[in-house]
C-alpha cells in the first residue's frame, strides 16, 4: 500500500490541544491521517477526488470550530467523528446532485451527527453570504474592510496605504464602506 496510508496517527487529545494552540504541524498530521478514509468513502460512493477534498475539508472545519468553541467532548473516537460528519455531508451532497443510488457503501462505523451538520451549514451560509457581499463591494472598500475588520490593521496603516491626507477622511470612507457592506449582506 501507499506510504501515505502509513502516516503517523496523532492521538485524539494531541489533536484537540493542537487545534486550541493553532498548531500547524498537528493540523497537518490530522489532515494526512484521515484523508484516505474519506477519499475511500467518496470515491466508492459515486464521487471523485475533488469532491472528497471538499467534503473532508468541510469536516475538518466543523471539528476545528467545535474545538475552538470549547464544546467538543471526546465521547467517541476522533476518527469516527470525522467519518460520520463526512458521511452525512456526502449523503446530502449526493442527494443534491441526484446521484444517490439508495444505499451508501460504508467503511467505518458512524454516529448520528445530523444536528451538527445542520448547524454548520447555517454558519456556512452566513459566511458565504459575507463572501458574496465582499465580492460585490468593490475597491477600495473591500480592501479597507478586509484590512480593518479581518486583518486588524490600524486606521493609521490604512491611511498610509491609501494615501488619505487626514484620518477623518479615512474614517468617513470606512464608515461608508461598512454601511454598503451591511446593505449588500442583508439584501441577499
Amino acid at each position, binding site marked *: 500500500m*501507499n506510504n501515505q*496510508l502509513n502516516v503517523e496517527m496523532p492521538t485524539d487529545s494531541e489533536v484537540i490541544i493542537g487545534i486550541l494552540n493553532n498548531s500547524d504541524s498537528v493540523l497537518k498530521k490530522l*489532515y494526512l491521517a484521515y484523508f484516505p478514509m474519506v477519499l475511500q468513502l467518496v*470515491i466508492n460512493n459515486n464521487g471523485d477526488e475533488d469532491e472528497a477534498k471538499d467534503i473532508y*475539508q468541510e469536516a475538518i*472545519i466543523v471539528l476545528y470550530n467545535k474545538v475552538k468553541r470549547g464544546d467538543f467532548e471526546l465521547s467517541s473516537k476522533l476518527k469516527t467523528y470525522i467519518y460520520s460528519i463526512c458521511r452525512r455531508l456526502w449523503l446530502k451532497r449526493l442527494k443534491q446532485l441526484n446521484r444517490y*443510488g439508495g444505499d451508501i457503501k460504508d467503511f467505518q462505523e458512524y454516529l448520528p451527527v445530523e444536528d451538527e451538520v445542520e448547524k454548520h451549514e447555517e454558519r456556512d451560509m452566513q459566511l458565504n453570504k459575507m463572501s458574496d457581499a465582499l465580492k460585490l463591494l468593490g475597491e477600495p472598500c473591500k480592501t479597507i474592510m478586509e484590512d480593518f*475588520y*479581518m486583518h486588524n490593521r490600524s486606521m493609521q496603516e490604512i491611511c498610509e496605504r491609501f494615501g488619505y491626507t487626514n484620518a477623518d477622511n479615512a474614517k468617513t470612507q470606512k464608515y461608508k464602506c461598512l454601511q454598503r457592506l*451591511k446593505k449588500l449582506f442583508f439584501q441577499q
Partner: protein
Amino acid sequence: MKDNQLLEMIESYLSGEMPAGERAQFDALRKKDATIDTKIAEHKHFTGLLKQYNERLSLQNRLDEIHEEIDVHTLKDDLMAHPSWVVQMWRHHHSKISVAASIAIFAILLTLYFTGDLSNRDPRFLQLKQDVERLKKEQPALGNKLNDIIKSNKTGPTISAKFRGTGFALTGNGYIVTNYHVVNGADSVYVQNAEGESFRTKVIYTEPQYDVAILEINDPAFKNLGTVPYSFKKAKSDLGENVYTLGFPGDDLKFGPGALTAGTGFHGDTTEYEMYIPVNPGNSGGPVMDEKGNVIGVITGKQTQTSGVAFAVKSNYLLKAIQSIPADSLSKSLNLSTKNTLASLSRTQQIKKLRNYVFMVKVYNQ
C-alpha cells in the same frame, strides 16, 4: 450625534480603547437608550462574522497547502474497491443484465434448434442412403409397370423401393454386406444385381456401432455366385493409397476412383478411413477396394461441407462384425475367401469381375 461618530464610539468601546471617563458616560448612554444597545450588539455580530470569515479563509488555505502534498492519484488507485466494481455494476444493473442474459440464452437455443445442432445427428454428415422419390400415384404408370413385370415373369417386388444403398458379396453362397443405416427399420430388403435381377434377402445380423449389416439371400431364384475374387484386408491401409469404389447411386453400377486421405473418419472416428472419393447417396454400403483388389472398407457416408470427402468403415471392423454373428443365425457356411484373384489384373478387368458381386440394396417399409 452623527451615525459615523457613533460607530467610532462603538468601535472604540468594543475594542476597549475608550478612556475610562468616556466609557462610564457611554455605559450610561447605553442604559438610557435601547437603540444604542441594539446597535452595539448588531455591530459586534457583524464584525464577528467578518472575523469568522477571515478565520475560515485562512484555515481553508492551510488545509489546501497540506492537501497539495498528498499524492491523491496513487492513493485513489489504492483505495478504489476494484472487486466492488462488478458488484456495483450488478447492483445497479442486475435487472437489465438478467433480461439480456435471458434473451441471449433464448437466442442461442433457437439458433441451435434451427441449425439442427440440438439433435444428435451432425448436420455436416450425410449418410448415403438414398430417399427414392415417393411412388407416383398415377394409376396408368403403375398399371403399365405391373403389366411389364407380370409379362417379363421376373421375381421381385411390385412396388418401388423407398431407400437404396449398395452391398457386396461376402461369399458366393449369398451373404451380402451393406450399411446398417441402409437397412435400419426395413420391412423387407431386396438386392438387385447388375443384370437387374432382384432377390429377397433377410437381415441376419447388424452392428450399428460400425454401421454394418449382413444380409443373406434366401430367394429360390438365386444361384451361387462362385468364389468371390477378392479377399478382405486385415491390416490397416496406408495414406495415399489409390482406392476405388463401386456402387449404385443410380440404376447403373458406377465406378468411383479416389485415394485414402486419413486413418480416421468423421470427427476422428478410429473405426473409419477418410477418403477423397466421389460418392453420392446410394453409394452407402459399397466396397472400398485397393489397387490389388483387396476390400479395405465399406463406404458409410460423406462430409457435406467438403466436397469429395467420404468415409468408410475399416475392413477389420467388418471382419470383427462377421465374427460376432451368432452361429445359429447362419443357415449356410460363411467362409470368407482368402484368395485374391484380382491382384494381377488391370483395373478395368478387376471391375468386370467385380460387377457380379456388387448389388443394389432396395429397402421397403410401410
